[in-house]
């Protein structure tokens, strides 16, 4: 009987490259290296300005049997701890309620990043032509699938075993209400998978992984542990042990294009834009999540940022790539200015817009306010006083008839949304570096908050078409939008988001919001 072409090809391949019969790691590695991807007309599906060299080595040394064995041990340890030990000691209920809310944001958002990293590394596999480099990217794809499951599992675990499940479960259904999701999709989705394939690698591996996974995935474990959360460190440290290899992949991307003349023309621009894209969201959002989403403090975000972003990444990691012509991004200096106040600015807006979220935010206690003032001198005069005024007006209690968004309107402090990053800002109140600029182009107004983003838009406007919530919901009443876009709990009336985590405090319902008669309007219409 004739064998199929595929069976014949597989048999022939095995005759040339015999499968090893032992499991000696080096032998397996050599065997894998002998695999090549040869296409008649090798071309990528994706656009890129760069040509990747086809003799690039990968540094991903432990693949196949070694790799799979290692990952299965890690999974067994992680899921074993979670399901056995941690469930027995009721760990999910020992987490501080504020931190429980923060994990709704962090793990759901990181899941989106991991999911897009699957696509991004698949795209890089397609774009690379060196077999070893392809191996490296392919193995990363497997890692990212693992991480997507792990992040989903954290929220599943909190939902099943913990306190206040709403928002841990099914957070995506709320994705179109507030601005936080859109900004996150800009960095974790667009940044990783749209545009130039190499630029995507720079966003994902050189910036996202080499720069921001330290403050994100490592620092978060310290904040979690300090706030009684043993679940997050168990999972996130298991994720982080894969990231080192991903950073190595980013390094190899640079090595593979180092001799291409395109690198001298474009590489530092792409790096600068990628860094600015990632930091514009992560700097304020992570700082806010850690400092305002916890009760027990670890260290001020600005210190973490300076150590890991500015010195370790901007100095040492990028310094190592200096021999390939890579320069520390010019935007790093502006980012450093923002790292001090930007997350405080964002908290004011996030708290004012709390009904549009999918988690509960809280005002800092007196003890926490003292911590803020001690670590950010001048904090109380600006932010502390505003928060005290909101609290005095009863912003936590539905019978007060007051949400802080009304305070912004009463005091004529318009909130704008940056077209490029989708991050909201209030130029009147921000102590960070954001400044308002509004341009009309082809009959449409666009708002920006910084030089780097504005330049990105002026160069490639069609990349940033995303409508913001003011454009999308202008003329609509807030409770209607929340109801239509799934922002309520299973009783059909209580909001998922709340402005407190007090177990005895009253929860806000759609009726409470409706009574405020908050109608969306687009602030650029007034200009």
């Amino acid at each position: 009987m004739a064998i199929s072409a595929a069976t014949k090809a597989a048999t022939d391949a095995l005759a040339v490259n015999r499968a090893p019969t032992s499991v000696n790691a080096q032998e397996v590695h050599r065997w894998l290296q002998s695999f090549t991807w040869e296409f008649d007309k090798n071309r990528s599906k994706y656009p890129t300005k760069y040509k990747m060299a086809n003799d690039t080595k990968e540094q991903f040394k432990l693949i196949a049997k070694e790799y799979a064995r290692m990952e299965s041990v890690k999974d067994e340890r992680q899921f074993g701890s979670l399901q056995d030990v941690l469930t027995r000691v009721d760990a999910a209920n020992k987490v501080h309620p504020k931190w429980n809310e923060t994990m709704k944001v962090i793990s759901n958002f990181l899941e989106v990043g991991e999911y897009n990293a699957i696509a991004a590394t698949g795209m890089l596999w397609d774009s690379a032509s060196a077999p070893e480099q392809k191996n490296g990217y392919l193995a990363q794809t497997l890692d990212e699938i693992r991480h997507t499951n792990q992040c989903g599992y954290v929220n599943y675990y909190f939902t099943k075993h913990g306190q206040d499940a709403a928002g841990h479960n099914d957070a995506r259904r709320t994705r179109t209400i507030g601005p936080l999701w859109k900004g996150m999709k800009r960095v974790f989705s667009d940044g990783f998978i749209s545009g130039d394939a190499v630029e995507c690698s720079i966003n994902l591996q050189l910036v996202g992984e080499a720069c921001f996974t330290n403050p994100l995935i490592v620092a978060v474990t310290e904040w979690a542990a300090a706030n009684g959360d043993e679940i997050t460190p168990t999972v996130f440290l298991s994720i982080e042990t894969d990231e080192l290899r991903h950073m190595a992949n980013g390094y190899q991307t640079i090595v593979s294009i180092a001799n291409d003349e395109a690198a001298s023309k474009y590489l530092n621009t792409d790096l600068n834009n990628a860094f600015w894209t990632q930091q514009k969201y992560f700097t304020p959002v992570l700082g806010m999540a850690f400092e305002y989403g916890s009760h027990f403090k670890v260290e001020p975000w600005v210190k973490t940022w300076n150590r890991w972003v500015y010195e370790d990444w901007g100095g040492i990691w990028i310094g190592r790539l200096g021999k390939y012509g890579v320069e520390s991004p010019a935007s790093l200096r502006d980012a450093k200015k923002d790292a001090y106040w930007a997350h405080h600015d964002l908290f004011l807006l996030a708290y004012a817009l709390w009904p549009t979220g999918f988690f509960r935010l809280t005002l800092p206690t007196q003890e926490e306010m003292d911590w803020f003032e001690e670590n950010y001198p001048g904090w109380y005069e600006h932010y502390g006083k505003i928060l005290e005024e909101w609290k005095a007006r009863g912003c936590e209690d539905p019978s007060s008839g007051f949400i802080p968004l009304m305070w912004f309107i009463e005091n004529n402090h318009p909130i704008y949304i940056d077209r490029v990053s989708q991050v909201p800002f209030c130029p009147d109140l921000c102590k960070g570096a954001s400044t308002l600029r509004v341009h009309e182009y082809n009959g449409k107004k666009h708002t920006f908050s910084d030089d780097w983003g504005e330049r990105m838009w002026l160069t490639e406007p069609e990349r940033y078409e995303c409508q913001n919530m003011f454009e999308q919901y202008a003329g609509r009443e807030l409770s209607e939008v929340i109801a239509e876009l799934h922002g309520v709990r299973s009783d059909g009336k209580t909001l998922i988001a709340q402005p407190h985590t007090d177990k005895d405090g009253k929860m806000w319902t759609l009726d409470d919001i409706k009574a405020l008669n908050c109608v969306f309007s687009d602030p650029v219409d007034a200009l």
Partner: protein
Amino acid sequence: MANYKVHDNPVRDEWTAKIGQLKTLSKGHTFLNNFRKTHTTPLRENFDLELDWGWIECKIEEKVALLKHAELDDHQFLNNCICGADAQEVADTAVAAMDACTDKYEAEKLHINFRIDCKPPVMPTNVFMDADRLLGTKLMELRNTNYYALSLEELRIERGVKVITVQ
């Protein structure tokens, strides 16, 4: 101001009815092309459908794809644009124009217009995607050359924006 729901709303209903009236491939093609020019891309004629254009365009494309399935044979389906032109020739012409282009704003128009005219189901996907990759690559090269040469003030003028406010 759009004081109606995101998903079920009167604007979508109105367009659904119009799309239902399209009975031939050639009518569907003209309708789709006009819609894209008027309501989509940064070059659009107006922003009247700012909230719903993506959904409506998708519904027109669905309808045109069905009409295409009914009217074209298998060979045409893989090799021809809806109008009957040889897809690879159309794509090659666009790529040649882009190869010859040295101005980034011209290149941007070439790319956007290629998408307006050819985005599937107008051109078969197998031909469209590769041409789109080549056009995008060249456009990115032009845009990213001397990226910081102009000041923001100069760049605003070159892009042709009207500055409303700069703080």
